[in-house]
């Protein structure tokens, strides 16, 4: 069977069964061969026979369920696989199959529940994570569908559509939806901040600034709006304003992302090069975003040069260049790896649920 000689394997197991008709494992193995041959009805009969002879036989309920799933007998399939998960609650494969069949039954909540359990047992299984993702996606889709049905005019509907567009980097569409949401709920906290972020992504800094300002009028405690006003000010070279906004935001919520980098740039813009160097040094030590880290080294090189600390400037620029080179090298390797993987995927048929071993 392992060599793919399925007919020979089937004959072998049949011969064993003829000699010993109550040998449950032989019936189970014959079932596996039949399943592999696509003869699902015969597989079901073999698994059922095996279970009648040995009710707790490991795998028998699972494969019985899989065979029934192949024949679209979903209720029976769920019942069988559930038996397997009761008998072997740590069997991630069985849980995954139960999830897959629940998905086929169009019950994404139930699927998500068992697939979450499977992912806890085997956290890095690509197959389990894939099906779990699918289940949660459907749960979310169904939830939004119900929401749309419940109140198609709700600002929430517009917000969700805006978020979906933002996620897909369709910034102008996202802006249109946010504006529609704001029309329905003009003082709803958060909406103007999200709108401002999309204006920023769409390279409309003036509109972004106005949206963030409006957010602060509605919700003076919105730290993100305040911080983003600071970042916008950095981008338009208004260091004094940038510093005021960013420092105020940090008083509300310390540890905002890239704060040292942005404060460093603000200080540079107002000519406080020593303070800028301090912030940028901290950014180079603590920044986890590789792109911002590179930029921090770059700005640090500039500020050191302004401070006439030439050897440190050269060192900072050398570090910047090294990070850039590493990035280029990594990117080249990743691209090649990705390409190999994609070429392999392309040569395979469309995705189907993985067969449990």
């Amino acid at each position: 069977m392992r060599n793919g000689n399925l007919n020979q394997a089937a004959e072998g197991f049949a011969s064993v069964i003829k000699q010993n008709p109550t040998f449950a494992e032989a019936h189970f193995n014959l079932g596996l061969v039949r399943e592999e041959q696509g003869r699902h009805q015969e597989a079901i009969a073999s698994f059922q026979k095996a279970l009648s002879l040995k009710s707790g036989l490991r795998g028998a309920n699972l494969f019985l369920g899989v065979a029934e799933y192949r024949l679209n007998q979903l209720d029976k399939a769920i019942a069988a696989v559930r038996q397997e998960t009761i008998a072997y609650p740590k069997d991630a494969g069985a849980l995954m199959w139960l999830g897959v069949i629940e998905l086929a039954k169009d019950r994404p909540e139930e699927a998500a529940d068992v697939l979450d359990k499977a992912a806890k047992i085997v956290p890095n299984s690509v197959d389990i994570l894939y099906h779990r993702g699918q289940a949660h996606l459907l749960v979310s889709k169904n939830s939004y569908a119900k929401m749309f049905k419940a109140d198609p005019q709700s600002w929430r509907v517009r917000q969700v559509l805006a978020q979906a567009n933002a996620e897909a980097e369709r910034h102008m569409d996202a802006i249109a939806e946010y504006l529609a949401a704001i029309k329905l709920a003009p003082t709803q906290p958060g909406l103007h901040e999200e709108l401002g972020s999309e204006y920023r992504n769409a390279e409309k800094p003036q509109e972004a600034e106005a949206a963030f300002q409006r957010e602060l009028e509605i919700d003076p405690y919105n730290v993100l709006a305040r911080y983003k006003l600071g970042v916008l000010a950095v981008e338009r070279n208004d260091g004094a304003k940038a510093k005021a906004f960013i420092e105020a935001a940090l008083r509300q919520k310390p540890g905002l992302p890239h704060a040292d980098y942005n404060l460093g740039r603000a200080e540079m813009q107002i000519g406080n090069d020593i303070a800028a160097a301090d912030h940028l040094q901290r950014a180079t030590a603590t920044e986890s975003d590789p792109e911002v880290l590179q930029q921090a080294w770059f700005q640090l090189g500039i500020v050191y040069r302004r401070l006439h600390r030439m050897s440190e400037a050269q060192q900072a620029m050398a570090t910047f260049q090294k990070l850039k080179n590493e990035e280029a090298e990594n990117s080249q390797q990743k691209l090649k790896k990705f390409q190999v993987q994609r070429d392999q995927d392309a040569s395979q048929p469309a995705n189907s649920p993985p067969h449990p071993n």
Partner: protein
Amino acid sequence: MLMPDAAAGQQGTSPLTAAPRKSAGSFVDVTAAKGLNFRYLSSHTSRKYLLETMGPGVALFDYDNDGRLDIFLVNGASLDDPTPKGTIPQKTGPQYWNRLYHQKSDGSFEDVTEKAGLQGKGYGMGVAVGDYDNDGYEDLYVTAYGGNRLYHNNGDGTFTDVTEKAGAGGGGWSTSAAWIDLDGDGLLDLVVLRYLQWDFDDVWCGEHKPGYRSYCHPDYFKPIAPLAYHNDGNGRFTEVSQKIGMSKSGKGLGIAIADYDRDGRTDIFIANDSTLEFLYHNKGNGTFEEVGLMSNTAVDGDGRAFAGMGVDFADYNNDGLPDLIVTDLANQMYALFQNNGDGTFNYASYTSGVGPITRPHSGWGVRFLDYDNDGWKDLLIAQGHDLDTIQLTSPNLRYREPMLLARNTGHGFVDVSADSGQVFQQAWAARGMAIGDLDNDGRVDAVVTTNDGPAYILHNETPTQNHWLTLLLVGHKSNRDAIGAEIKVATAKGPQFAVVTTAASYLSASDKRVHFGLGAEKVAQSVEIHWPSGIAQTLKDVIADQILQVDESPREKGK
């Protein structure tokens, strides 16, 4: 040494801002009317070889010294689908020939390719123009994939392919090239950029579904060093990139020259695609040092590398210091580097208005040019994305885009394309661009190439009463083209600066004559020329609205 004029000061402080301003230009497509009938054949295949989307270049030059600019257009070659690795494509028929169009006295063009012997070989990319033997006739260097060609202008309307004799054929994938006197010996040398270490590999990039295969990002390929050919003066060239410190590997697409640090020696900027940009500082002893990072021109203001493609190196803010504009891909913003005068540049894309104007666009050929002669150099840019599938993956972007005309107000740039003629409504996959005053009417015109499409003549018909001055410099001790010479034109309203060059833009060579818009001024109080030889020469009270030939004076006034 030409020093920055303290009186000119910062951008916007020059009295030239007082000149009357017209908001938009007027460029008219006169291609058909002038008899230009060229199509660049890039031989697109299903394999999406990167080579297919990158060309071509164009040259505007006066090959027969009749005072009228002629047009040379580079063409591709046939490609098999697939093309076996290692192939050097060849021109398999007249449809793939490069073309030379001679401008007749009535302003129309005639195809003189065969007579000139400029049909060419291989899959062409770019062109550089320079009189390398100082015989008074412009020679041509045509870059290509798999080997370049040097054509000597015989002065009788014909050219001779002297590549083998000159030893300047190169190899690999060459792109833009620049004629420049690297060592100050009065002979033009040649710098040839190369793009990538590349071959006809069948690499699938983009999504694996029909219609989504795309050109591979340059990150897929390794960088390669440029070639620097020293002109030995006997018709032969010696490759010296290593020797002169110009052998740093990059992904070179655009090249431009100017003396950025005012030390009297011409420097070189190389626009690299998606890696650090290079600024080669001329150390004066015949060698160069790459100072991109330390001059703040290697990356954008946030320290990000961008897809540098075309470049121009000119003083847009009339402070006596050459600045840089580098075109790149959509979402990156074209990079405007303003020269600080201390050997560093300030990334000025945000503050100048260039950033917001150009963020959604992808640019190639680019030149600073004063389209309305108001004394401020504006920007004309050839645009279009490199990926013909871009709209599938980024619905807000376009493969074909209209040209961009940005007016320099003296305080920044504003997009005036929409009001500057129909040509700015037409979507092209534009690539190369050369500028020059085709009809000698005092308004600078342009010729633009498109990928797998026609070349277009854009005639500048901007209505203006402004005055102008065009200078044709003839070197005697310096190289005859005067490439590298610096010119300061002063009027009652302020000074302007320019450098003589044929290189800049993308894959292209422009008119070597230097054009100045003088606004309302009918006289230039002085024209100071600093020749590459070190000779300084000053003309007084030069009348506007003329093309003036200036021969290098034998008198040396100091270096």
